[in-house]
């Protein structure tokens, strides 16, 4: 049952990315619902769930938006290694800030990879456009959306999970 709910959420996230997100742009950037969904899964359901979810949602989004699923996998790939790195760096920040840092880093990487894909595909290269229309507003949107997604779980009293893979346990 849990797996069906997760699969449905991934399906809806991919569809929302190509229907709802373009309706609410800031500058040129649009909200990244797929990233928010993956961060939410990794934080509250555990890294194993995110590991399985990433390729599935990449394929869904690739099909819905006619994008390269392979490129989308590479775009969201740093999520778990970066989350683990931030976990283990013993930074003097709360868990919430650590999740925001993970989202910000992965979001920047994802937008860079997708823009690079567009440039390689023939789009005119514009570094100022990349910085001011994609990365900066994208960063703002990612932090805003992850905050909105994080707070309800905290208000329900849930504890965010670490990104560490634990041997012999099932967190998904």
């Amino acid at each position, binding site marked *: 049952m849990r797996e069906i709910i997760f699969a449905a959420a991934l399906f809806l996230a991919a569809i929302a990315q190509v229907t709802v997100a373009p309706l609410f742009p800031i500058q040129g950037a649009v909200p990244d619902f797929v990233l928010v969904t993956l961060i939410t899964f990794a934080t509250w359901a555990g890294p194993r769930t995110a590991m399985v979810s990433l390729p599935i949602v990449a394929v869904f989004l690739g099909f819905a938006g*006619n994008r390269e*699923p392979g*490129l989308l*996998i590479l775009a969201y790939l740093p999520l778990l*290694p970066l989350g*683990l790195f931030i976990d283990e760096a013993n930074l003097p920040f709360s868990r919430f800030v650590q999740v925001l840092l993970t989202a910000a880093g992965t979001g920047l990487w994802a937008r860079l990879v997708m823009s690079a894909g567009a440039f390689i595909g023939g789009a005119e290269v*514009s570094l100022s456009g990349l910085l001011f229309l*994609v990365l900066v507003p994208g960063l703002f949107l990612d932090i805003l959306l992850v905050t909105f997604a994080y707070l309800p779980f905290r208000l329900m009293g849930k504890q965010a999970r670490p990104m560490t893979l634990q041997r012999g346990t099932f967190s998904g």
Partner: protein
Amino acid sequence: MVIFSRYSWWVAAMIGLALFLTAAGQVGILGPFQNLFLQAATPVEKAFDGIFRPVASLLSDFDDLRSLQEENRQLRLENEKLQNRVTELELDAARVQELEKALEITQSDTSQQKVAANVVSHDSSPFTDVISIDRGSNDGIQPGMNVLSSQGSLIGTVTKVTPDHSFIRLITDSKSKVNAQVRDTQVEGIVKGGPNRTITFDLAQAEVKVGDVIVTSGLGGNYQAGIPIARVTEVKGTPQDLFAEVKLEPLVRLSTVQTVLVLTSFVPQRLDLDD
């Protein structure tokens, strides 16, 4: 790199899967799966669109209230001018017909076949602007066909077709390039999409004025000649400049388009599409 060693097998598997999916996409293995997915997704896409588009319109209209009032006033004036122009053109057309009859000129068949379709998704980023529609190869749509708004202005080109769906690259996509000309002066140039869904009229070697209407020139064979594309909103540059910087605004608000017409009677002569 302890971090990567813990996730190394997973990262390696994902890179392998990414390469496999890219290769599979290139040879078309994913096509049937994509079609199945789109069939399942279309009702959900329509539902999302029905719920969120009015919200977005409301926010947008609230934001643009003052400019909309001014635009409305301008449009009324323009509408009046156009009504007069239509009357003139109708008279001209009747006269041309009479002359053609008198000269026994056989008019070529200019009828256009179009397929109407609903927009089901709009995938947009600062460098890409792609929509999908609920018609595909089963309806006679082929890659490269021109896509028009319901008012008849160019909005893009079909880039990929599945049996029941098609993907359209809009003119605001930064990969889009359309050979075009100024309608009244025939000054030629290229309408190019730029970052953040902007469009420009490049390489125009003569004077272009604000308000000029740009239409397809038909050069290159990818677009039918004479389709209206956009209106000039800004011209920058001095007479010494070889090319002025000409900014355009599409004749239709592309973000709110819900119905499009695919021009099935025009099959491009040359295709240089990359997907």
